[in-house]
């Protein structure tokens, strides 16, 4: 089985995350770049399946700038079999539709049985890429899985929503996305880092994928960006014997109770 895991380089949540107010893009120099944690969890699902199922190939796929190889190397060090990096200047600031198109073309090119992604990236937080990719690939999708069971012919899992949980099952090939309920990813180790050097690593451009980023199709463009306004001071409740009542009044007034 060939599993493709979508991974993304994102600014580290430990640092300040900033938008470049000129371009409207994430200011990538503002913080360390890391492999998105949810993508690591997706990778963990694939690698642990591969460990118990000989003949499974795990391909880490990422679209992004020239710093991406560092995070893809981490995916290889954790245990992915090979990595594909889609790198193209024309992808700067690409919107969701273009990103989904690029991913699906890269997936088709590699061929696949299963695509695993995180449900939501820590930086973009759009949460729709897995479904869009499935749509473009013409395969079923099972998104927001909090548990997952992969077999030769299908994937089964629990999706948790605000209203409850549902068990879903889809035949392969398919696209699934997982949530933070899935186990933490393993850390790479020294042996993995050394082995990563020798694993296949492919860099592909948009023309390799037959995509024209300038094609006259509808795209979303950023019209304006602005710094998030500073947070206003909160309400301070001073307890003079009636603190409890004041708290309750506050919660009621704000429809929190």
């Amino acid at each position, binding site marked *: 089985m060939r599993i493709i895991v979508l991974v993304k380089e994102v600014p580290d949540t430990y640092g300040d995350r900033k938008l470049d107010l000129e371009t409207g893009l994430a200011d990538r120099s503002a913080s360390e770049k890391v492999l998105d944690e949810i993508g690591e969890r997706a990778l963990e699902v694939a690698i642990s399946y591969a460990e118990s199922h000989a003949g499974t190939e795990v391909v880490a796929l990422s679209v992004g700038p020239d710093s991406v190889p*560092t995070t893809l190397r981490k995916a290889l060090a954790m245990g992915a079999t090979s990595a594909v990096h889609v790198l193209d200047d024309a992808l700067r600031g690409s919107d969701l539709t273009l990103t989904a198109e690029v991913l699906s073309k890269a997936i088709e090119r590699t061929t696949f049985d299963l695509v695993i992604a995180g449900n939501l990236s820590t930086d973009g937080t759009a949460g729709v890429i897995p479904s869009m990719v499935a749509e473009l690939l013409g395969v079923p999708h099972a998104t927001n899985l909090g548990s997952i069971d992969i077999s030769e012919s299908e994937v089964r899992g629990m999706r948790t929503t605000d209203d409850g949980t549902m068990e879903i099952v889809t035949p392969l090939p398919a696209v699934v996305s997982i949530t933070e309920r899935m186990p933490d990813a393993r*850390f790479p180790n*020294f042996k993995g880092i*050394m082995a*990563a050097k020798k694993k296949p690593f492919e860099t592909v451009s948009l023309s390799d994928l037959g995509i024209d980023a300038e094609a006259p199709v509808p795209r979303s463009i950023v019209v304006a960006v602005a710094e998030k306004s500073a947070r206003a001071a909160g309400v301070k409740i001073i307890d003079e014997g009636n603190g409890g009542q004041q708290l309750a009044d506050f919660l009621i007034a704000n429809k929190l109770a």
Partner: protein
Amino acid sequence: MPASRLMVSEEADDIVALARELATQKLAPRVADDEKQAIFPRDIFALLGQAGLMSLPYPEQYGGGAQPAEIYLQVFEEIGAAWASVGVGISVHALSCFPLANYGSEEQKSRWLPEMLSGDTLGAYCLSEAHAGSDPAAMRTKATRTEGGYLINGAKAWTTHGGNADFYTVMARTADTGGRGISCFLVPADAEGLSAASPEQKMGLTGSPTATMNFDNVFVEEARRIGAEGQGLSIALAALESGRLGIAAVATGLAQGALDLAVTYAKSREAFGKAIIDHEGLGFVLADMAADVESARATYLSAARLKDVGRPFGKQAAIAKLVATDNAMKVTTNAVQVLGGAGYTKDFPAERFMREAKVMQIFEGTNQIQRLVISRDLARAS
């Protein structure tokens, strides 16, 4: 802010990144509590061992990582920046493996080294005695010949990991010929007659147990003697040459941690209507701290590069240990100053950093002894 490093290769970058990731995610959340309660974090060493970071300096064929000093020392530094006791611990473990890895016979190495480098075991190094610290040639612990091996009797003071280690690399006297009468032995923790006294109550580095190891007729088979009889002190001193680079790296990490804390605090703390970092008098204190950290790093890396190409590096290692640990003492003392009253409380790690820095000027040769090594080298050089 992570240190800005120029690494020799992508995988070197990845190895140091792994150390930093483990340090921030696994070590940093635990350090304050464990140090406060004097808990020895044995499981953290297991974690680092599984990651392959406990055996980086030694050959691949015995399970090591075969990494140059330039790389593994930066791993030590990242670990030391998060938790000094653990940084010292991996450095002492490397020190304890040094004699076998460098002076053991092929047979000895294949018999014991793989386990020592597996990441599952932890080593200790027994050189100092109560009356013989700076002057190890004055040691009295004896190894007397007996059928098939030796009987060791005496007491080894100040053993880092004492009572918790899986193996002990021990220097003991085999002849009454001063520095030339000492031999080196690899003693397993379960050897009969080997016991640890209760650990020292220390000023800092409380998560790292330090204990006197008592040897009461401890039998050691002849095959466990490393090198020739009488070669022990020179083996011990060679091990310390490399060990000092480890301590220099850990001290640099400690200083970096103190600098990071001080800078973060100084940006958010205000006095006289502005952040204290914007008062020149304090900003310059921070600038000096940054200069001390960078120069410590540059000094140990420069010594490491000499070691990696096989050139003599004893003087440079002594200079690195001296500069890095004296700088760490200055930087951590100033970190307390930058935090003001808060720095003097146990609510912030600044005071702990200061206590941890102090011991770095003392062990693996006091900084007076480093000056002795340097000045002797100067006197010898033509």
